[in-house]
């Protein structure tokens, strides 16, 4: 009996270990693609189906396909809600010098703003602000946290 129980426990331990390692590998591949965060952990919504933020690669401000998709949803929502104004907040991760990161955050926020304008939102309704590395959403020092912090967030301003 006792022996059987021990075997059973061993199996449970083995099985859960397998499960955990499977999870962590699966998670890794989902979280970032080409250095850009693709997960949903930190994302909030401006309205149903309208994510508030997009993510960037290290030192870059280029919009990915997924980012453009999110921004088009934001533009559609803003065109439907004509009295809404927004602030686009640009952020950088903690792995750069402070002053360069301020400029980088500004460039990221403007990349989002430009795209919203291309999709019919007046520039007057969009202000931008850069926080550089000053306002991390994830305070950890890890590649995952850094990818979540390289972002621009569209925030309702009124």
């Amino acid at each position, binding site marked *: 009996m006792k022996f059987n129980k021990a075997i059973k426990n061993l199996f449970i331990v083995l099985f859960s270990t397998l499960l955990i390692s499977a999870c962590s590998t699966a998670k890794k591949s989902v979280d970032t693609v080409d250095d850009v965060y693709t997960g949903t952990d930190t994302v909030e919504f401006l309205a149903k189906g309208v994510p508030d933020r997009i993510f960037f690669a290290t030192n870059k401000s280029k919009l990915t396909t997924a980012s453009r998709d999110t921004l088009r949803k934001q533009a559609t929502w803003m065109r439907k809600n004509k009295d809404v104004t927004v602030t686009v907040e640009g952020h950088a991760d903690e792995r*750069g010098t402070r*002053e360069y990161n*301020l*400029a980088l955050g*500004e*460039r990221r926020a403007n990349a989002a703003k430009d795209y919203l304008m291309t999709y019919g939102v007046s520039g007057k309704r969009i202000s931008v602000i*850069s*926080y550089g590395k000053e306002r*991390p959403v994830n305070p950890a020092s890890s590649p995952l946290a850094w990818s979540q912090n390289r972002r621009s967030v569209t925030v309702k301003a009124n």
Partner: protein
Amino acid sequence: MKKIIFILLLSILSWNSSNALITVDITRGNLDPLPIAVSPLHVDSESEKIPSFETSTLGAEISKIIEKNFKSTGLFNPLKKDSFVQKPDIAHLKPRFEDWRLIKAQALVTGKLLIKNNKLKVEFRLWDLTAAKEMVALSFTTTPNNWRRVAHIISDKIYERLTGESGYFDTRIAYVSETGPKNQRIKKLALMDQDGFNTKYLTLGNELVLTPRFNPTNQLVTYLSYFKNMPRVYLLDIETGIQEVVGNFPGMTFAPRFSPDGKKIIMSFAKDGNSDIYSMDLETRVVEQITKHPSIDTSPSYSPDGKYITFNSDRSGLQQIYVMRSDGTQVKRITHGSGLYGTPVWSPRGDLIAFTKVRKGRFYIGVMRSDGTGERLLTENFYQEAPSWSPNGRVLIFYRETKSDSKGKGFSAKLWSIDITGYNERRLKTETDASDPSWSSLLSK
């Protein structure tokens, strides 16, 4: 900062101009620091009592500050006082050189002080024990509350005499004080003496403030404030506390620094996703655009003669350091090594540029000549940046951040300094976490 708090009356009692036998070489890391004895200053028995501090121990306190300053340079080895062989007042008249040599001292500092009519009168002498002669003798008068500065000025005079270079002890550090969790940091402008004493907070922490920098006379600080959530360059008068926004730009201004004559502020202005470098004349308020390039141009710093500007740009694709004439012409890239380069700052001596380098996920503080040659990396860490020069161009102060765990714990930001020799790395004590240090020039020149 009290303007000229000092009536620095340097009456030179005697100046021995002949070459002394003892000198300290500060151009290399010093593995054999000079043994120096700093005798407590003798307190004249005629001294008045002062309510704010203990007069009788003032001479000992001043000597302790001098010792601490010397120790922090790594160039001097202040000897323990319990081995001292002569009473302070007698040693100050004329030391018995052979007795002091017995405790292996090579230099001796003696002095005396008197407080009368609410004036502090201090006299000190530096003795070369090997040559058995006086090297420096100075006296000066100030208000008693300035006693810490007295100790720093004495330290500077001795440093100058022994190394042949001006000192950096009678100086202050402006920095950003940090408290609170990593994702909700509260930041205030702060000011302290270079040895960590007399900390003052210049803002309340209601808005985010970054990157304070002194003007050449140390009365003003320019910095970035998020007042009303509009990041703009500000000017703060330290004495009056009056703050004003510099320039009415339709967007973020940041990375400010004074010109060497103090008449202009140079900074970045970000608009529509592009940061360029501008200067503003503080008197006429005339703004001049200096760079015009669709990439990020930031972290500008003038050469001490005002003729050139070094700055940071990613026009090559990644952050590198450039030098141009101060009118924006003749732009030349000076860094070509592998990795990213940021935060260039021109040495007050004009010979070197200090910088931050990022390579393979590690951060370095380094120096190079102003043409980019002779790069030397002084210190490597997880995260460190933003070097600022000591007024004599021998020491750099910068800030260092530590790694945090998944909850943001373990994070800290501290001030550190290192000699440009790469030796003598040390942490500066601050009341709170600290970043973005700016080293003043000498307060009394």
